[in-house]
C-alpha cells in the first residue's frame, strides 16, 4: 500500500512550525464527511428513531419499543418478501455468474473486434432501469408484446395472459430481465480480471502440454477466485435491492408474487403510510446490507489488494 507518511510529504520545517500538518487530511475529508453525515447518517438514525415510534400517516407518535419490529416479524408479507428476494437472487445471480464467466472466457479466447463489442455489451447495464422496464414490457407484456406474441401466444402457450400478470411466471420474467441486464456486466468484469492475470503460469502450462480444462481449473480459477467472489457479492447486494424494474413491470404483483423487500417497504410507506413498520423493515435490511458490505470490503481489500 502506497502511503506517504507525514514526514514524506510535509517538510519537517513546516511541521515543526505549526501543528497544521497533522490536520491536513482531516481538512480534506471534512466536506465529504459532513455531507455524508447529513445525507446518509441522519436519515439512517431518523429511520431507527421512527422504527421505535408509533408512526402512521406522517404523524410521529409515542415511543413503543420493539412493537414495530414485532409486527413486522409477524407479518406474512415480510417473510414473503424475503422469499421473493431469496428466489430472485438465488436463481438470477448464479445464472448471471455462469453466463458472465463463460462469456468472459470466450471473449478472452481471441474474439476479434473486441473494441467494438465491449462497449455494445455495456449498453444493457448502463440503461436506466425505467427504460429497461418499458423495453421488456414492449417485448413480453400482454398477448401483444413482440416476443410474447410471436413466440408464445401464436403457439397457444400462454393464452391471453400477460407473463407479468401470471402469479407463477411473473417472478421468473423479472429474473429474465435482470439476467438480460446484468450478465454482460459480469462478463466484462470477469473479462477485465482475466486480462490482468499474469502470463507466466500459462507459459509453464503450455510447456508441460496441460489440457485446456486442466489449465482452467488449476491456474485460471484459483487466481480468479477473489475477483469472482467480490463481483458476485456486489451483484448479490445489488440484486437484493432491486426496485425500479419490479416497480415498472409488475408493481410487486400479481398479489404479492414479486413483492421484494424494497417494493414492500415502498408500499408500506407510500400506499399504507405505515411508516413505523416500514422503517423497521428499512433498518433490518440496512443492517443486513452492512454485513454484506463489510465482507465485500474485507475480501476486496485483503485478497484483491484493491482498497
Amino acid at each position, binding site marked *: 500500500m502506497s502511503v506517504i507518511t507525514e514526514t*514524506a510529504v510535509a517538510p519537517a520545517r513546516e511541521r515543526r512550525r505549526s501543528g497544521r500538518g497533522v490536520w491536513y487530511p482531516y481538512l480534506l475529508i471534512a466536506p465529504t464527511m459532513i455531507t455524508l453525515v447529513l445525507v446518509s447518517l*441522519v436519515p439512517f438514525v431518523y429511520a431507527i428513531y421512527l422504527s421505535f415510534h408509533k408512526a402512521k400517516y*406522517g404523524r410521529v407518535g409515542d415511543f413503543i419499543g420493539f412493537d414495530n419490529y414485532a409486527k413486522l416479524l409477524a407479518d406474512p408479507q415480510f417473510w414473503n418478501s424475503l422469499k421473493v428476494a431469496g428466489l430472485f437472487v438465488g436463481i438470477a445471480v448464479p445464472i448471471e455468474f455462469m453466463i458472465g464467466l463463460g462469456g468472459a472466457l470466450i471473449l478472452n479466447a481471441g474474439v476479434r473486434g473486441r473494441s467494438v463489442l465491449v462497449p455494445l455489451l455495456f449498453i444493457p447495464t*448502463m440503461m436506466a432501469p425505467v427504460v429497461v422496464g418499458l423495453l421488456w414490457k414492449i417485448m413480453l407484456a400482454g398477448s401483444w408484446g413482440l416476443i410474447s406474441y410471436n413466440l408464445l401466444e401464436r403457439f397457444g402457450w400462454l393464452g391471453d395472459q400477460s407473463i407479468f400478470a401470471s402469479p407463477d411466471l411473473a417472478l421468473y420474467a423479472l429474473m429474465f430481465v435482470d439476467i438480460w441486464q446484468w450478465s454482460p456486466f459480469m462478463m466484462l468484469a470477469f473479462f477485465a480480471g482475466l486480462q490482468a492475470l499474469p502470463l507466466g503460469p500459462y507459459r509453464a502450462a503450455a510447456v508441460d502440454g496441460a489440457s485446456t480444462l486442466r489449465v482452467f481449473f488449476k491456474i485460471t480459477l484459483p487466481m480468479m477466485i477473489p475477483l469472482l467472489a*467480490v463481483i458476485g457479492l456486489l451483484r448479490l447486494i445489488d440484486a437484493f435491492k432491486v426496485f425500479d424494474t419490479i416497480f415498472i413491470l409488475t408493481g410487486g404483483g400479481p398479489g404479492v408474487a414479486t413483492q421484494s423487500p424494497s417494493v414492500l417497504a415502498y408500499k408500506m410507506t407510500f400506499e399504507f403510510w405505515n411508516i413505523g413498520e416500514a422503517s423497521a423493515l428499512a433498518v433490518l435490511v440496512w443492517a443486513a446490507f452492512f454485513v454484506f458490505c463489510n465482507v465485500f*470490503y474485507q475480501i476486496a481489500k485483503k485478497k484483491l489488494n484493491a482498497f
Partner: protein
Amino acid sequence: MNANKTSLLWTTVAVLYALVLLFPVLWMATMMVKPADVMFARPTEFLFTPTLANFDYVIAEGFAWNLLTSFVLCTVSTVLVVLIGTPAAYAFARFEMKGKDDLFLFILASRMGPPVCLVIPFYLIFTKVGLLDTFAGLTLAYMTFNLSFYVWVLRSFCRDLPVELEEAAALEGWSRPQIFMRVVFPLLRNGIVATAVLCFIFAWNEFLFAFMLGGDRIQTLPVAIPKLITAQGVRWGEVAVVGIVALLPVLAVVLLLQRHIVRGLTLGAVKG
C-alpha cells in the same frame, strides 16, 4: 490455422450474443418512427412508412423541459460531487488517519444501502424542512449514492499515481495545496472525468428519489415517462422516443469510457 478457426467460432458466438442482447433496444429504436396503427399489429409488421408524429407529441407534451431538468440536475449534482469529493479521495489514498477504515466503510455503506430505505426518512425530513420537490432537495439526496461512489472509486485512481512526484515536489518546498493542484490534479484528470461521468449517468438513470422526492415541479425524464400512459392507453411510440433519448448519454459514455466502466461499477475492485 486451428487457432484461426477457434477465434472465428468464438467471434461468431460473441457477435450473435451481442445481437440477441441488443435486439430489444434496436426494436425500440424502430418504434420511434412507427405509426401507431402498426405498433403492435398482428401479425407483427416489419415494414412500415416512417412517421415523425411520435416526436411531435413528445415535444408538444413539454418533454424538452424534463430533458432540461434532468440535464441541469445531473450536471449540478455531479459538479458538486467532484468539488467536495476529490480532496477526500486523495486524502483517503495518501494519508494515515485515525479510524480511516471505519470512515471508509461508512462511505461504502452509504453507497450500498438500498435507496428505498433512504427515501422514507428523506421524504419525512424534506416535508418538514420544505425541501420536497425542490432542486436543492434532489441534489442533496443524490449526494448519498454519488458522493460516496465518487470518493470510493476516485481513491483507487489516486492510488495508481506514483508517490515519488509528490515527494519530489515536497522536497522542493512546495506547499501541500500547491502539490495537490499542480502535481496531483493534472495526473488525476482522466480518473476524475471517468468517475464524474459515471456519477452523471447514475443520477440520469435514477428513478425512486426523483419520483418520490421530486415529481411535480422538478420532474426528471425517467419520472416523466408515465405521463405517456393516458386514459386511451400507453403511447408506445412516444415511450420509445423518450426512452431512446434517455439512452443517448449512456451510448456516449459506453463509447468514450469503456475501460473505466468496469472499474467504476465494481467500485474500484477491478481495474478495467
